[in-house]
């Protein structure tokens, strides 16, 4: 029983990460109709900026480094949006749009390798250790991940419901043409969304440093599983992203209690293909069925 709770807790922790990943690219999908295949590189970039430059090079305290990293990623996101996402979203062939973001991923990967070097590194004393809760031990990282996820969800919820930008984002997600006819600047909306998405990626990148270290491939698996989470929950819907992310995290974690651990990573993809074949609209029946 203890081990069950232990696994469940770990699953929810990782599930939260998948949630955030799924939300981060769902936002861009809703704003521009593009799937950001470079999103894992956004995550990696956030982690490198935070750990490689701000903490290790400039020796900034973490309290200061986090907002600076978020700010830098927001700027990076808006630049990427203006230079790449906006032109791509206007192309009529979706193959080129997909290729464009894949190339962006390649560029970011190469640039990171050239700037920070290929060797992986770690932040030695960054959120280590665990709390004991009876028999179950809760690692601090997972606790932090859960708190951060809930905080981000609340912020997004508030933004969507109460702010003008958020309402505009919801309009664009619903119908781009109608939104632009109603006076919403779709291009500006894309820029803002990618910046926001870049900030969420940065949070994800910082949170997974204790779990995966900082390396060029640190976020590849998370990125792919985030896609799986989006499909399983229902593509293009934020609640779907949350449900799908948690489901994949929990199933994967529970599976590692019964099956051979080496196939742990396969679970998410089997779920992905299974859902696509049986219930392509996902658990929450998304309407984005294009």
């Amino acid at each position, binding site marked *: 029983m203890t081990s069950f709770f232990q696994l469940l807790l770990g699953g929810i922790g990782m599930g939260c990460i998948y949630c955030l990943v799924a939300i981060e690219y769902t936002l861009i999908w809703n704003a521009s109709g593009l*799937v950001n295949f470079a999103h894992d590189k956004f995550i990696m970039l956030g982690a490198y900026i935070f750990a490689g430059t701000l903490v290790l090079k400039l020796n900034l305290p973490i309290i200061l480094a986090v907002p600076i990293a978020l700010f830098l990623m927001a700027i990076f996101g808006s630049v990427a949006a203006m230079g*790449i996402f906006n*032109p*791509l979203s206007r*192309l009529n*062939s*979706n*193959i*080129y749009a*997909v*290729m*464009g973001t*894949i*190339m*962006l991923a*390649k*560029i970011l990967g*190469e*640039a990171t*390798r*050239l700037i920070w070097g290929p060797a992986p590194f770690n932040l030695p004393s960054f959120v280590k250790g665990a709390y004991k809760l009876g028999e179950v031990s809760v690692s601090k990282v997972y606790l932090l991940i859960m708190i951060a996820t809930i905080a981000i969800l609340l912020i997004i919820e508030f933004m969507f419901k109460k702010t003008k930008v958020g309402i505009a984002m919801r309009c664009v997600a619903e119908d781009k043409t109608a939104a632009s006819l109603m006076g919403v600047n779709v291009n500006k909306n894309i820029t803002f969304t990618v910046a926001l998405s870049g900030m969420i990626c940065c949070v994800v990148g910082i949170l997974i440093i204790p779990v995966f270290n900082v390396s060029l491939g640190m976020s*590849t698996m998370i990125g*792919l599983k985030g*896609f*799986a989470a989006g*499909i399983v929950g229902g*593509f293009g819907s934020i609640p779907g992203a949350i449900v799908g992310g948690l489901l994949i995290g929990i199933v994967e974690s529970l599976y590692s209690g019964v099956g*051979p651990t*080496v*196939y742990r*990573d*396969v679970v998410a*993809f*089997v779920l*992905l*293909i299974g859902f*696509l*074949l049986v219930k*392509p609209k996902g658990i929450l029946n998304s309407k984005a069925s*294009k």
Partner: protein
Amino acid sequence: MKKRTKVLLLTGLGLLLAALPVFITNAYAIIVINQTLISIIVLMGLNFITGLMGQMNLGTAGIMAMGAYTSALLTTKLSMSPWVALISAVLMGCILGIGLGYPSLRIKGIYLALTTLGFSEIIRLVINNLVDITGGPTGVRNIPCFKLFSYEIKGAVPYYYLLLIFVVVMIVIALRIIHSKWGRAIKAIKDNEVAVEACGIKLSTIKIFAFTLCCVYGCIGGALYGHLIGYISPTDFSVDTTIRYLMMLMIGGIGSIPGNVIGAVVVNVLPEALRFLGNYYWLIFSILILVSSVLLPNGLVSVIKMIYSKVSRFAVKGEK
């Protein structure tokens, strides 16, 4: 007149290709050329689905891996002849094609892209972890080379000729399919699926046919790759491989066989020519592709076509 120039050009090209190893004596260069030839085969397969039918396929690496491992394991573990193993790889391609074609009947666009990506990852993870059969991360070593009666097609130059024959045959087959009624139907699917059905054409047949072609080409390419290098491991078939093929497809021009050849040559040979860029090579190359995808959505082939039409117009004016 026009046909004669075409025949002359093709004969010239054929002679040039046949004599290539005479000019290029560097063994490494020949290996690069061999890899280019294999890329052309795989790329033509991808071209059927993504180029002509307009369906996103991000599973190239997985398809190649299945072909390569089928052939490599049959020759090393069961000591079969590489020719028999190659035929088995083709069969594997047919099975994969049907397996990937069925999902494509229900899902499209970004969903299909993610399904094929997931498929490719599953294949790689399974190969990586089935250590007893596939050797896991250490891969398969000592894959034998092809034999013609008692002559071993060993070394870069003999293999070059073998690959050249393969490539020519596969190009001819691809061209014949593209210029047949099936080719037309495949292109029509890209434009409008509902209208294809309204014409009385069974969509599933054409789609599965195109996917099977893609997988057969991919598996043959994978198998030939294994016999070329003599060693394969899961890292050869990661997402990066898929991306390389998509790059080739985009550079050359989507949907055109000459474009495929150009794309494969550019992506395989250019890194060698641009060695002086060193570490910055991939960065610069990716930026170039990203820019060209926005500015030049029909690939290099469109530039060549444009120049050709300008030149021929100029020539006509001159005659007058």
